[in-house]
């Protein structure tokens, strides 16, 4: 097994061609499996348009990554099988210091892949209006929809939902329904939704997993994210940024319902809260709240089952509040 200075002796197999053929078959097979069998089941699912875009991105990345992983692993496996030292062989290998062709094509290849992924990622970020990610207080990539003071079923009116994080609960306010608030997140199907995510104390992160929405809840910041729910059903909301001892317990569930059902629910809650005096007691709807100057702080707010007055009731941070 001694190879002389000549590069390709007649007995030496054509390692390059062999590797390429095995790689081509494996990579094709892997990509077909990923695209046609795995893709439809990939997280986070297809419940909303932002989730669909994330799923598509993950699938495209997987299809691009699989050939690279297979290439590297195949190469190392091949070399440790073919070029492992035989017992008694004390020789050194051929002194190859480099190969300009190989190096240049490697660099060119990786650059092309990287630039493709960059262009692809940017298109996928700008096109679907941030793809469900938090875009700060003044997003430049906006979701299409009419802004209106009232929301009604049937139209293309944007539904505004304010998400308020606090240790350790989520509260949702609906400014188009008199600023009523709820501890469960209800969304109408097929309606564009704007989330205004903010926090009363520390940094939280609003993660509606199946909706493909994730936006940090920062105190004194209005972080905007968009989505449009595409199918009915329940979804999970979790806090995704460490926010203190009950961070793990800071989750609840939301529902996507039909537009008519949503209208009924929202108006119902609104009139109930009005009747109970909660709407009057809550601070006026604003994009951010400063808990240290909320006038009702510490006041004895009326409480109704299933509806917390989070925006008006601020837990002192050292209180060991159990969920």
């Amino acid at each position, binding site marked *: 097994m001694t190879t002389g200075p000549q590069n390709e002796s007649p007995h030496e197999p054509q390692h390059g061609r062999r590797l390429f053929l095995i790689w081509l078959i494996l990579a094709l097979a892997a990509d077909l499996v990923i695209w046609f069998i795995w893709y439809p089941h990939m*997280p986070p699912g297809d419940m909303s348009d*932002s989730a669909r875009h994330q799923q598509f*991105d993950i699938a495209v*990345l997987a299809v691009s990554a699989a050939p*690279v*992983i297979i290439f*590297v692993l195949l*190469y*190392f496996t091949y*070399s*440790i099988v073919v*070029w492992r030292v035989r017992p008694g*062989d004390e*020789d*050194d*290998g*051929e*002194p190859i*210091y*480099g*190969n300009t062709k*190989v190096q240049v094509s*490697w660099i060119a290849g990786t650059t092309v892949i*990287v630039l493709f992924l*960059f262009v*692809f*990622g*940017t298109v*996928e*970020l*700008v096109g*679907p209006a941030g*793809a*469900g*990610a938090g875009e700060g207080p003044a997003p*430049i990539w906006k979701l299409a929809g009419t802004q209106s003071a009232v929301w009604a079923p049937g139209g293309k009116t944007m539904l505004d939902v304010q998400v308020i994080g606090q240790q350790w609960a989520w509260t949702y306010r609906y400014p188009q329904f008199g600023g009523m608030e709820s501890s469960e997140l209800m969304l109408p199907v097929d309606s564009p939704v704007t989330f205004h995510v903010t926090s009363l104390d*520390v*940094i939280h*992160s609003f*993660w509606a*997993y199946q909706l493909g*929405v*994730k*936006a*940090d809840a*920062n*105190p004194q*910041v209005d*972080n905007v994210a968009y989505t449009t729910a595409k199918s009915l059903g329940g979804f999970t909301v979790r*806090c995704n*940024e*460490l926010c*203190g*001892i*009950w*961070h*793990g*317990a800071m989750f609840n569930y939301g529902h996507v319902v039909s537009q008519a059902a949503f209208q009924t629910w929202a108006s119902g809650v609104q009139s109930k809260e009005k009747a109970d005096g909660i709407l009057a007691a809550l601070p006026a709807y604003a994009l951010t709240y400063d808990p*240290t100057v909320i006038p009702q702080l510490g006041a004895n707010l009326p409480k109704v089952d299933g509806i917390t007055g989070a925006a008006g009731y601020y837990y002192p*941070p050292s209180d060991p509040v159990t969920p």
Partner: protein
Amino acid sequence: MAIETHQDQAEAAGSGPPLGGHGALRPWYLRPGVHLGVVGAAVGYILGHLLGNFLSSAYQQNALSDSNDIPIVLGYTFATLGWLAGLGVFNDLGRQILGRPLLAEIRRGGSEAGLSKYFRYTLDHKVVGIQYLYGMIAYFLTGGLFAMAIRSELLSPSYHLLGPSQYLMVVGEHGTMMMMMMSSVILGPFGQYFGPLLIGSKRVAFPRIEALGFWLTPAAYVILLSGVLFGGFPTGWTGYEPLATQATAGEDSYFFAFGLMGLSMILAGFNMIVTVINYRAPGMRWSRLPMFVWSMFTVSFLQVLAVPVLVGACYMGLMDRTFQTAFFTNQLGGSSFLYEDLFWFFGHPEVYILALPGFGVISEVVAVFCRKPLFGYKVAAAGMLGVGILSFFVWQHHLFDSGINPDMRPLFMLTTELISIPTGFIYLVGMGTFWKARIRFSIPMLFALAFYFNFLIGGISGVFLSDVPADTTEHGSFFVMAHFHYTIMGGLIFAFMAGIYYWLPKMTGIKLNEKLGKLHFWTMFIFFNTTFLPLFALGMMGMPRRVFEYARNLETLNDWVSISAFCLGGSILIFVINFVMSMLFWREPEVGNPWRARSLEWQLSSPPPPENFKRVPVILSSSYDYGVKDALPVADLNPPPGVIGAAYAGAPGVPAGLEA
């Protein structure tokens, strides 16, 4: 420069200004050392605490936190100073300020027999390397035990073993211990020990700074652990504000220890840069510099440039907690975004401070056991520099969903993806070196192969995280956790293990048991992957980091991961047993050049003599010239007198007469 080139002086015992004292040593308990350091730390803590109580007795407590932290922070400060004073760090400084001659005691450390030099402020870089080695293993095992506690809690989807605050304490201690202490896991033991050896130098540029860098690590370690006494800190290793301002007294330990370790990193980096630039032996051109030295050199720049930002952030955090500044409190005009920016501006170079030394070790190991020159040496060096430079321009990818500057996300997506090009060079170099090689499966080589496997998965999953839409699902979930455990544990720690099996015979003259070593490798490789591969799936299925309550349908997978993690812990235990038994009891000598390596350190005795080289060596060829017929030896270890002087002839600053 003068010290290294002046043959006669360099061969005489020690160098530099004349030594004072009487030559005779004081009794051991009066000489500075760990025991006096502990006394100093205890006295310092009490003094600082009393001073803090005195200063802040009438001080209004922090509006957000319910504790008065001034006595604790001052206690930590004075304890650190007392610890260093007891170790004798300030002795030379004081004597020089007073104009008195320096004591011989510290300087003699390198040639001192026995173990006591390892417990003192010793200025020999090889002693410091050994100190780092034992320190790092201890820190790593401590962090690992915390990981075992985390996985025990995650056996069930609700809390059963640790309470919520205990759980976060364990998570924070694990994360911070690993991220801050392990930044020096290769840089400390191998960088300090082999950096000078590999460039043909007798010493590092600033031995006092180097030793100080090490002796800050035990202080940081103890202070970080002391957070447990105050209930720990609930912020994980990132210490996000304003949670950190709100947290109880344990948070002080986080900021103080991280800042202290930051100082240690800056000092180590500073010393390494100057050493590599100025202390290379004649003939050690930049184009012959071993890849490990390149990695140390690059990492040192990252440390010197990025870590001060962390030290600043920690300082501001402590000020917020004690003296009620409001750098990070939004309601008072500060910004929690500022902390996120500062932390990640350090934090992303930090992960390359962790990764690059691994690349260096692996490059050395691969060339030796492939018996081939490193493929594309210049590409490898360029890759390290490229990663180092780009790592300063990617930090916002940790904040894609945070709402900071969201319009710049495409730019940070681009820089993040660009960094995979120079990172890919490490694979180009590795794969090129494997081409038609004579691969020998020694234990270091096995770890190197595992490094390529693990780091590949870690790196590719990083590309998933760089894509903003995909990141919206993955950010902050177990996917991220799996990703950085693959790069840091699978990359750095595997490289560290490769380094231990490769270099321990050189450092101690003793080799580790091979059978146990192979068992250690295979269990570690298998259980590492069975532990961390499922975490990608868990994250994709919606499990956020740092929670102990998770969805019921994820319980089976979490149990699998926990059991694998315990097995991984068992594998590390095999390593510890092997290490302890081999070093203390079996003591199988390995003094020659067992790997038939060409590099400079293996041309010396094991362990190398106190001053490394009798004369400054002249480097004749690259250390990677395997398989080259009639290759010159890597260096002439005993060059005829005059050669060194001639090499520097005409160079500015060389004393006249040296050319002779």
